[in-house]
């Protein structure tokens, strides 16, 4: 009985101590992690919207942002496009010029594709193919877009995610035409 009690006591103490320590470390790193997420989002938005110097969220949707130039005029919208890739979800920030109905840029926020193959969707040579494409473009990999060698599924996934989220964004009335 004594032995049992000691086992329970020791294991509980270790578990509680571990919980307390982790809570402390989490408190300490949380602000820094939020900062990193914010910073990454900001860099991505400004990257996909050339000419934008600041941005604001559109409506109450955390996935869509409006890019503003120095005179507070809208230069385009940026939105997060997400969907399934080869091994996990691919999340991208896409920039769109609403008036001219074309894409201004695309950057990958996160993905779980194969390093060295599918992961090359992050590379500039692949991403820049989407710049200047019309929003009505079907983005068919290996037709309109050069797919990555050995990573057809990842390339197709990017095209499909883009096509689907663009049509969803365009249907959204908040963005219908310029203000």
């Amino acid at each position: 009985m004594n032995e049992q009690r000691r086992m329970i006591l020791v294991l509980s103490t270790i578990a509680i101590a571990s919980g307390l320590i982790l809570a402390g470390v989490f408190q300490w790193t949380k602000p820094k992690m939020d900062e990193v997420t914010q910073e990454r989002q900001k860099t991505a938005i400004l990257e996909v919207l050339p000419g934008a110097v600041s941005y604001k969220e559109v409506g109450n949707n955390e996935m869509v942002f409006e890019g503003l130039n120095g005179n507070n005029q809208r230069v385009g919208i940026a939105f997060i496009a997400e969907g399934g890739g080869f091994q996990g979800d691919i999340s991208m920030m896409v920039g769109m010029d609403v008036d001219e109905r074309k894409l201004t840029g695309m950057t990958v926020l996160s993905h779980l594709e194969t390093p060295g193959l599918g992961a090359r969707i992050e590379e500039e040579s692949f991403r820049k193919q989407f710049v200047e494409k019309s929003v009505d473009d079907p983005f068919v990999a290996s037709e309109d877009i050069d797919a990555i060698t050995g990573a057809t599924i990842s390339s197709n996934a990017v095209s499909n995610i883009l096509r689907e989220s663009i049509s969803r964004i365009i249907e959204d009335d908040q963005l219908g035409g310029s203000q």
Partner: protein
Amino acid sequence: MKIWAEFIKGLWKENPVFRQLMGMCPTLAVTNAAINGLAMGLATLFVLLCSNVIVALIKHLIPDKVRIPSYIIIIATFVTIADLFLAAFFPEIQRVLGLFIPLIVVNCIILGRAEAFASKNNVKFALIDALGMGIGFTWALTLLGIIRELLGMGTVFGLQVMGTNFTPWIIFILPPGAFLTLGVLLGIINTFSNKKTTKTSCH
């Protein structure tokens, strides 16, 4: 000197990867680039150091029957600390290693050292043992990463070294390349180390 011997054994004679063949999951999974191997090795070294020291400190307090769950909680705590720390201060590395950091918990080299060494030795030796094993693990993973990155992408630590005419052998950065590289390295190392392990205690 005994301290020196405890340190040096992890580097070569009892190297976790090449001699003990422990921790094969991260060894094979993350070494598709030199930087990933190095980062994984260093993260493992950190967890190994902390868990070995704590286990050696409180080994007399832990009843024998609950020692394994206790060690696992201690290890898991330090792994989570490492994960949070990397996410906050080295987000790029954390992004690459992502999934593999939590898996350090089940890396048998860490529990193995806690059970086989730290629970039987004092803090000083546990620390030295963890340093040796951790560095041994790190150099092994970095070497695998360098070879696979060189053959699979023509680069080392992201720097182009093979010239533009080189056709990368993509298989080397894919899972089969890990087995091929490790197998060949083990063969080479077995040839050079005259002392073959005749009998192993575990199967």
